[in-house]
């Protein structure tokens, strides 16, 4: 195979492999909401505060998964 096709092959394989980074974010968000459910079950009066914290934590954990998306875009479109 010539160099151009090889480079494209490497790019596509690399971009596909970066999607493995989302599993960390998925587990993290699952843990956050598991803790939130636990807290609401133990203390239903604090539901408002716990929900606010849960959404804030979800956004911060989701950001880590989106960093892997950023690497995917970098590999696909920025690397020559």
């Amino acid at each position, binding site marked *: 195979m010539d160099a151009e096709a090889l480079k494209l092959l490497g790019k596509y394989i690399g971009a596909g492999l970066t999607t493995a980074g989302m599993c960390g974010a998925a587990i993290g968000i699952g843990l956050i909401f598991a803790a939130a459910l636990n807290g609401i079950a133990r203390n239903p009066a604090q539901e408002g505060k716990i929900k606010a914290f849960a*959404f*804030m934590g979800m*956004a911060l954990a*989701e*950001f880590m998964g*989106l*960093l892997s*998306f950023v690497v995917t*875009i970098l590999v696909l*479109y920025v690397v020559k």
Partner: protein
Amino acid sequence: MAEASLNPVEQFELRDYFSFPHISGYNIAFTNASLWMALAVLGVFLFIGLGARRPALVPGRFQTMVEMLYQFVSDMVESSAGAEGKKYFPIIFSLFIFVLFCNLFGLIPYSFSVTSQIIVTFAFAAFVFIGVTFIGFYKHGLHFFHYFLPKGLPGGLIGLVLALFMIIIELFSYMARPVSLSIRLAANMTAGHILLQIMASFVAVGIIGLFPFAFLLIFIGFELFVACLQAYIFALLCSLYLNDALNMH
């Protein structure tokens, strides 16, 4: 069928609408990003202006909406940044509502999503980062550097080594704030819009396109939620960084 572009990244291209003469080699033009930012500002102006017209003590529906938004951000700033942070409520509210309207307008079909451009979100985040650091130095002087060395470390040689590591780690995590703030917003919007484009390309013409269309509708609903949530997270983190600069020293 019309020649529809199925490239999901093409929606993020900047298109010049009106070019000004080049100043020292820089291409200054009125692009579609400028147009949609101007439309967002107009939207904010109309929304709050129409809500604040003829303010009544018992508010009507529109005034209630604007008041709810105001109270929401006010409560958030007060609970995050304390009583001293109330002074900075106008900038946090402006940031929040501009980011919210830019996010929401980006969901209109055939529009341009302004906050998906990393340069726009980086401008916001750099502004907040530099402003908050400046506020910290203005309030505490050189004592601001004590932020990077938390209390409660053991004394002696091991304490010195620990302190060195803590300072380096704290410094790096402080520097990572504008990066994380900007990339969070931009990557969320970019990923959402790429996914919307891909799902819209699944919809076929005719009765067979009913299920993909229903799924697309649900996904647009989810993207609406993400738009509002990301604007709230941006404003919340800005007020938390402000709290770090004002207190905790």
